[in-house]
């Protein structure tokens, strides 16, 4: 339970970059999993993969729901506010990110398209295999490879623009 909670919470946080939204989304994921547990078939893949699919669907729903808000308030304007908010009152989870590459990557992740973002998060931050990502996203293998590749290159380019060079 705790292991799954941590994994789902991290997935939500990496996708949304918002702690409160991640908490709410994690709760929603478990609620949905609890209600639809009867529909899970082990033949369709592992439980963790199925749970990740549920999370991904909720994240996409959440992304679409909040798209209008984001259009009125562009990401470039929102980032400084986010930085101020984070530096004003740091909690342990934020402190772990503070001053590290992880924080810079988190910011860069917020700038790339959701398709590329979810592919990179699932591969490099959640450690899923290509086949599992294919199951979660429901797209062909070639698309998975392409999204991961483009996502990584885009992320590296953004980090370079931000003046960050991984050692």
């Amino acid at each position, binding site marked *: 339970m705790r292991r799954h909670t941590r994994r789902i919470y991290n997935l939500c946080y990496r996708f949304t970059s918002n702690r409160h939204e991640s*908490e709410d989304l994690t709760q929603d994921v478990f609620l949905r999993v609890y209600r639809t547990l009867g529909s899970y078939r082990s033949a369709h893949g592992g439980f963790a993969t199925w749970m990740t699919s549920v999370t991904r669907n909720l994240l996409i729903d959440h992304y679409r729901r909040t798209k209008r808000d984001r259009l009125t308030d562009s990401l470039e304007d929102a980032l400084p506010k986010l930085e101020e908010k984070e530096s004003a009152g740091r909690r342990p989870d934020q402190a772990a990110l503070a001053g590290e590459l992880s924080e810079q990557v988190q910011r860069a992740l917020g700038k790339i398209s959701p398709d590329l973002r979810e592919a990179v998060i699932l591969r490099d931050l959640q450690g899923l295999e290509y086949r599992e990502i294919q199951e979660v996203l429901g797209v062909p293998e070639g698309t998975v490879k392409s999204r991961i590749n483009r996502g990584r290159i885009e992320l590296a380019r953004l980090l370079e623009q931000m003046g960050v060079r*991984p050692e």
Partner: protein
Amino acid sequence: MAWTCEQIESRLSEYLDHLLGAAERHEFEAHAAGCARCTELVGRVGKLVGEMHRFEPLEVPPRLVSNILEQTLGKRAEKKGWRAWLGWLRPIAQPRFAYGAVTVFVTTIVLSQALGFQIRKISKENLKPANIYRAADRRAHLVYARSSKFFSDLRVVYEIQSRLRPEAEPQAAPEQQPAPNQRPGQSEGQPTRPRGLNRANNHNFTLLASMLDAVPVRSMR
């Protein structure tokens, strides 16, 4: 056919994730080695991927798990009466805690016995460090004295036994046919005597007497 920079860029993640075959990998590396732009790209993205794989997952907020449990399974029924009073015992009423407690208890008993404490007669004075040290020192000396006495006694017994043993076992004589009128066990030319008497002759008794005079009398325990 040599790879182009576009091919390198499009297959970069497959290279980093070891999904290329041996031939493709060779082509990839051959191009990257001779192209500064591709070398830089591979190095930059490779380092980023390596770093991301090392990121520690974030800790979940403390209330999140309990909130999820409440939302899915409902609130836990509050305990009433004596169960509520004994609720604080739950964390310590675990097998692991019981094992630990028993181990500590046994260790305490063994140590107190080794230090010479008597649980029933223990007083505040016994718990002073100086007294504990004195008791331990006394106990250690006592154990040492008893051990050395025991080994000394053991040595005396061993010496006596070795002196009483015949000095050299006689060579086994060639097997002879017994005389027609000789009984089994009877030696030739000697009258029949009990076998036990052969082992302790007068010479051995004299030796034992001289040793007992030489060795101080000790109690053998």
